[in-house]
C-alpha cells in the first residue's frame, strides 16, 4: 500500500508563525498549555507568547481583550476543547464582536487518533460554521497550511484553523481567501474534499485514472467563506459528486455542499464519505483510516464502486440524489466502508 502521508511535523508552522509575528508586532500567540505546534515561540516572542494554562474559556476571553487593543491573537488548543468547551466564549466575545482572533484547533478529525471520542473534533466545522462571519480554513497538509497562513492570519475576520501539518507529496496552487484549489480534472467523478483526507483522495484518484476513471478533485481549502463556484462547476461537469471529510455528516462539508446545490437549483447525485452519526474507532492514524474506509486502498475501492453504480444506473443506499422539485428534499445516505 502506498504511503500518502507521514507523521505531522509542526516545526515549519512554528517557524512561519514566529516569522510573521516578528515582522508584525500586532501578533500575540496564546495557548491553553498546548505547545506541541509552537515549541520554539516562547523564546522567539518573549512576552508576546502567553500560556494561560488549561483554561480555554479564559484564553478566548483574553484573546478578545487583546484584539480590542489592536492585536491579532493566534490561540492554540486541541480542536475539541477549543471549539466545544470555549464555544460560547468564541461565539460571544469573538463572533459577536467580529474580532480578528485566530483559533488554531489541534488534532482535528481523524488526527486525534487513539484518544477516543472526547478528543474527536468531528463536529467542529458544524459549530464554527454556525457563528456569523467566522472564516474556516481546512488545510490539506503542511504545505497547504503554510500557503494559506499569511492570508488567513492577516484577514480582519475571526478565523478557525483546522490545524493540519501532515506531510504529503501534493504541490499546491497559491492561496486566495475563499477560493478552492483544483487538484485534478476529470468528469466521471467530481470529488469535493477538505483537510487531512485530500492527499489520500488524490492518490486514490490517480489509481483510478490508470483504470480509465477520471476525477475532478477539488481541495476546498476554506469552508467559510465557501467557494460556491467550485462546487457548482464540479456539479455541472461531473455525473456524480462525492464529498469526503473527517467530520460528521451533520453540519459538515456534505451538508454545506447540499445547501449550495439546492440554493443553485442543481440536481446531481451526491455521495457522502464521512462519519454518519457515530464516533470513529480510536487507533493510530493508518489503522483509523483503514477501519473507517479512508485509506487510499479503501477510498479507491469505494470510489470505483460509486462510479460503477452510477454507470449501471442502479440505485444503491450509498447514492443520494438531491432533488428539489416540487419540494426540496435531501435524504441522508449511509456510507459503509
Amino acid at each position: 500500500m502506498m504511503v500518502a502521508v507521514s507523521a505531522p511535523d509542526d516545526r515549519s508552522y512554528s517557524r512561519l508563525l514566529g516569522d510573521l509575528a516578528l515582522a508584525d508586532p500586532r501578533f500575540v500567540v496564546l495557548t491553553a498549555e498546548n505547545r506541541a505546534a509552537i515549541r520554539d515561540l516562547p523564546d522567539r516572542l518573549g512576552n508576546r507568547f502567553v500560556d494561560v494554562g488549561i483554561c480555554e474559556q479564559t484564553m478566548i476571553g483574553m484573546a478578545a481583550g487583546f484584539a480590542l487593543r489592536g492585536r491579532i491573537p493566534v490561540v492554540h488548543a486541541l480542536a475539541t476543547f477549543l471549539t466545544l468547551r470555549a464555544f460560547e466564549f468564541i461565539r460571544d466575545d469573538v463572533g459577536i464582536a467580529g474580532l480578528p482572533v485566530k483559533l488554531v484547533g489541534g488534532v482535528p478529525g481523524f488526527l486525534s487518533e487513539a484518544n477516543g471520542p472526547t478528543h474527536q473534533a468531528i463536529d467542529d466545522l458544524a459549530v464554527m460554521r454556525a457563528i456569523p462571519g467566522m472564516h474556516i480554513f481546512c488545510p490539506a497538509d503542511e504545505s497547504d497550511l503554510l500557503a494559506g497562513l499569511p492570508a488567513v492570519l492577516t484577514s480582519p475576520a475571526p478565523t478557525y484553523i483546522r490545524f493540519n501539518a501532515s506531510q504529503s507529496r501534493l504541490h499546491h496552487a497559491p492561496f486566495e481567501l475563499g477560493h478552492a484549489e483544483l487538484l485534478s480534472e476529470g468528469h466521471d467523478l467530481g470529488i469535493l474534499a477538505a483537510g487531512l483526507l485530500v492527499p489520500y483522495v488524490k492518490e486514490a484518484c490517480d489509481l483510478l485514472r490508470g483504470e480509465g476513471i477520471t476525477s475532478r478533485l477539488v481541495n476546498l481549502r476554506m469552508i467559510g467563506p465557501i467557494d460556491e463556484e467550485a462546487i457548482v462547476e464540479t456539479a455541472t461537469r461531473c455525473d456524480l459528486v462525492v464529498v469526503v471529510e473527517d467530520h460528521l455528516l451533520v453540519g459538515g462539508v456534505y451538508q454545506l455542499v447540499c445547501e449550495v446545490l439546492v440554493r443553485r437549483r442543481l440536481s446531481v447525485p451526491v455521495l457522502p464519505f464521512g462519519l454518519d452519526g457515530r464516533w470513529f474507532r480510536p487507533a493510530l492514524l493508518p489503522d483509523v483510516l483503514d477501519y473507517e474506509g479512508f485509506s487510499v486502498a479503501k477510498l479507491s475501492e469505494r470510489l470505483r464502486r460509486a462510479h460503477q453504480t452510477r454507470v449501471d444506473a442502479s440505485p444503491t443506499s450509498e447514492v443520494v440524489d438531491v432533488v428539489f422539485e416540487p419540494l426540496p428534499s435531501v435524504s441522508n445516505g449511509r456510507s459503509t466502508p
Partner: protein
Amino acid sequence: MTDFAEVEQIARRVRAHAIRMATGGGCFLGASLSCADILVYLYLHVLRTSPVRREDPARDYLLLSKGHDVPALYGTLAELGYFPKARLAKHLSTDDHLYWHPNRAIPGVEFHSGSLGHLLSVGMGIALEAKISGGPSRVFVVVGDGELNEGSVWEAALVASAKRLDNLVLIVDRNGFQANVATESLIPLEPLADKLASFGFAVTEIDGHHLPSLEEAFAVLPRRPGSPTAVVARTIRNKGLPSIEGRAERWFVNLSPAEVQMLLHELEGSSRATLTSEPLVVR
C-alpha cells in the same frame, strides 16, 4: 476633600433614569440601583477616561460583566456626556441599541455582555496587553455576586493572579441576591473576601454605598504591587427605594407609568410607593 455631593446628585439622577427605563417592557432595576453609586463614583473620581478619550489607548476601561444592570451604566454615561440623555427614552426601541444588556453601539460601552462570567477574562486580555505595550491603562470589571456561580470567573481569577495583573480591579456588586433568591440560600459565597484572597487578589470589603469607603478602596491602586485587586462592595438591591430595597422578587420590574412616578417621588424622599405590578420570576 472629595466633593461627594456631586456623586450623590448624579447617582440620584442615574437612579431616576433607571426607574424611567423600568416601564414599557421593564429592566433589571434591582441590580441597576445596587451598583449605581459604584459606577458614578468610578466615572467621576477613578477612571482616567472621558467622552473625548473613548479611543485613547491610554484610557482606563470599565467592563460591566453582569450586563443586566446596564440601565445604571446607560444613565451614568448619559449624565457624563457620552451621549444625549434624550436617547435614554429610546430604551428597548428598535430605533436605538439601548436594550437589556450592554453593547458597543452605545458610546462609552467598552464591550458587550449578557452571558455571565465572560468579562473578567476579556478585561484580563486588555490588562495584559496594556502591560505588554507599556501602557498605563487600568481595567475595572464589575461582576455580580450571583455571577460568581460561574466557573469561568474562578478560572480567570487563577490566571489573573498567575499573570500578576495588578492593573486589574475586580469589583463584586455584593447585593446578596442572584436572580430570584439570596445567594447564601442557594450557592453560599461566604467567606467571599477570603476566597478571592486565596486566589491571589488583594481584597478589600466595603459598604458599596458609602462614598468615603469607595474613595478609600480605590485611592491607591494597585492595593498590592504584582497582584490584581478585588473590591467586595456590599450593596442593597434597589438601593434608594425603601419600599422595594432588598426584595428578592423586585429584580426585574416592569412598572406602570403611575408606578414610575411613585418611585421617582420615593427616590426624592417622599412617602413609600406601593407597587401593584406583577413581580416577575426570571430565568
